[in-house]
């Protein structure tokens, strides 16, 4: 079955900055920056190091909507959303950053 594609949404809270989507993307259209933070939990012997997402962007001027990033994400942080209307007046307007990508998630 052929279905029309919409847009790829990011759920930032689910993203662990593992870089799998960035490295699997055949169009090289995803960029991601993160940094490490130490989290101390009560009862833990040592502080835990976690990755914190600083920046995530998809360049829809390059994306070919293959959906590989959605498929490979081990944490389901990327998902298809139905929106299709995101044309832009210039090239830079097609680069969606973390907050814009998060805004595509359908809200009940």
């Amino acid at each position, binding site marked *: 079955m052929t279905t029309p594609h919409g847009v790829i949404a990011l759920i930032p809270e689910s993203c662990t*900055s593992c870089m799998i989507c*960035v*490295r699997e993307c055949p169009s090289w259209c995803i960029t991601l920056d*993160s940094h490490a933070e130490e989290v101390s939990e009560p009862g833990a012997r040592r502080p835990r190091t976690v*990755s914190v997402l600083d920046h995530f962007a998809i360049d829809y001027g390059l994306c070919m909507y293959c959906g590989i990033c959605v498929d490979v994400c081990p944490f389901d942080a990327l998902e298809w959303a139905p929106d299709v209307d995101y044309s832009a007046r210039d090239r830079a307007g097609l680069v969606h950053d973390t907050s814009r990508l998060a805004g595509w998630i359908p809200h009940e």
Partner: protein
Amino acid sequence: MRVIDRTDWLSAMTELHADGFSYLDVLTGLDRGSDVEVLARVVDVSAGRLRAEVVTTLVPRVDPHLSSVAAGYPAAVWHERETAEMFDIVFDGHPDPRPLLRRTDLGAAPLLKSTVLAARVVTPWPGTSEGESGRRSTRRPQPLGVPANWLHGGDA
């Protein structure tokens, strides 16, 4: 799908045309390593008899010649021009073998898997950055399908 010997390509296509498959739907190539597979889909569009046939043949990279079918199928003129420049094939007997879309004096045939796209060389790969902070792996990740010595800032 029928696989045809390269030397019988023109006669097989002529036979199909005489058989009623007079509409050329598509003619293109597929990189199969040491050969380029040329594939054509022809359709019989006569009333009440819609049927199609797919035929392919293997053209070795070392001797990339194939007979043109443009005499019987005029639509093949553009398809063969495109296949020629995208896969480095010579269609013998083609009535107008000018390049269709690209300058053939610049670089290799873009649809051959051995051809690395120029954009892959001048663009830094976004996967290089050490996203997994704290856990530096000893092996630097490499983009798939791009030879290491082609990479922007590569080690070669």
